[in-house]
């Protein structure tokens, strides 16, 4: 890198837009490195590793993969704890689900700003496209991100820069504004055409973005967790478990997480030292975690539901093993609950 080369950090999600915006700057001779923030809710994270049915899919972290395609370094930053205040108290509220997109983007740009100050970089770029997302990528909200993050004119959005005022890197001639773009709106065609032009054939375009909080089912489970707990605290384990299995709450006091296949059973098995678990002994069946408090009657109900999801669902009785978090085991034999007795409203 020559002495006069300026340095940018690029927010890399693993999707196409940040890949393209980074390549635009690389093409201008700017030294770019990537930064990726792990909130715990990232789709890029753990889900691929859990389900066995996904085994045929290549297990890769797309942010790393994108960085490798671009030939840049990537810094992955754990922001799980700091992110809690963003999720719990978003100044700008939530989107359609539990997604605090505007606050989230502001938070990430602020973290990137801290990073460039610590690492002697000059400015920040993102893959944002004006009008593409209903909350954080609008003409009126994009300046809010620049302002509230503190980044101001050190924040450059190469894909839609021509719709926005000149930034400091452009004013200083570090970046040629004429070579930046004016993408706008929800259509992905311009990005796909540019990808082809740049020679990118394989890229990720997750529907709904890169965050589980935009997913209605996931958000419902998160709200249910908080309601049952009586507060809005959460741990990384809590939010990972929301991605796994069927969640069934027969009573407010407890919930069952029922593995849907072998990969999930194996994954939930790893949590048996933290939660009570049920497994069928007499028949093949899923691992079931019990989250909450049960009395003797509840335990029978939990066992009956577990039996319903086992190979013994149509038999007269099923024997199960209940294991608590201290590895104490007891055997329980129950009649599987009938299918129509598993009420739809129990499913979270």
């Amino acid at each position: 890198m020559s002495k006069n080369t300026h340095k940018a950090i690029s927010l890399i999600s693993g999707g196409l837009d940040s890949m393209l915006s980074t390549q635009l700057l690389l093409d201008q001779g700017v030294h770019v490195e990537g930064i990726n923030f792990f909130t715990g809710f990232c789709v890029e994270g753990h889900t691929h590793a859990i389900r066995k049915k996904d085994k045929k899919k290549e297990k890769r972290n797309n942010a790393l993969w994108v960085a490798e395609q671009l030939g840049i370094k990537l810094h992955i930053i754990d922001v799980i704890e700091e992110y809690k205040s963003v999720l719990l108290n978003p100044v700008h509220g939530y989107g359609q689900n539990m997604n605090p997109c505007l606050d989230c983007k502001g938070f990430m740009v602020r973290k990137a700003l801290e990073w460039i100050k610590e690492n002697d970089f000059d400015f920040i770029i993102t893959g944002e496209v004006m009008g593409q997302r209903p909350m954080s990528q609008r003409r009126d909200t994009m300046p809010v991100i620049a302002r509230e993050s503190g980044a101001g004119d050190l924040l450059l959005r190469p894909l839609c820069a021509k719709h926005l005022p000149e930034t400091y890197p452009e004013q200083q001639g570090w970046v040629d504004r004429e070579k930046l773009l004016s993408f706008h709106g929800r259509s992905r065609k311009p990005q796909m055409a540019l990808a082809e032009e740049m020679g990118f054939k394989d890229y990720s375009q997750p529907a709904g973005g890169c965050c589980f909080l935009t997913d209605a089912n996931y958000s419902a489970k998160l709200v249910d967790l908080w309601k049952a707990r009586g507060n809005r605290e959460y741990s990384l384990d809590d939010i990972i478990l929301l991605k796994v299995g069927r969640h069934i709450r027969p009573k407010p006091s407890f919930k069952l997480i029922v593995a849907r296949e072998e990969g999930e059973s194996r994954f939930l098995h790893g949590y048996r030292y933290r939660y009570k678990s049920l497994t069928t002994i007499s028949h093949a069946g899923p691992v079931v975690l019990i989250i909450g408090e049960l009395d003797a009657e509840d335990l029978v109900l939990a066992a009956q539901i577990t039996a319903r999801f086992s190979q013994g669902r149509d038999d007269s009785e099923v024997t199960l093993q209940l294991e608590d978090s201290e590895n104490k085991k007891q055997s329980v034999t129950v009649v599987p609950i009938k299918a129509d007795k598993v009420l739809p409203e129990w499913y979270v």
Partner: protein
Amino acid sequence: MCDDMNDSGKELDARNLLCPLPVIRTQDFVKNLESGDEFVVRCTDPGAKSDIPSWCRINGHKVIDIQQSEYEVLIKIQVVK
């Protein structure tokens, strides 16, 4: 398994962590090592088998060996700074 893999004695336990946490732990572990140091990362997330080598490639570190059993992936890395 793989007891002979780690002759350096330095080991990072990234078991029961899911991607990208094994990569983040590896990244943080490397910050405190010198160029030429070797260590083994022990993971249970099968995704680590592609992600950690990918992280090593983009940051210039050398993957010396990868071994996988049914439950664990062990990756031996040499730090290059």
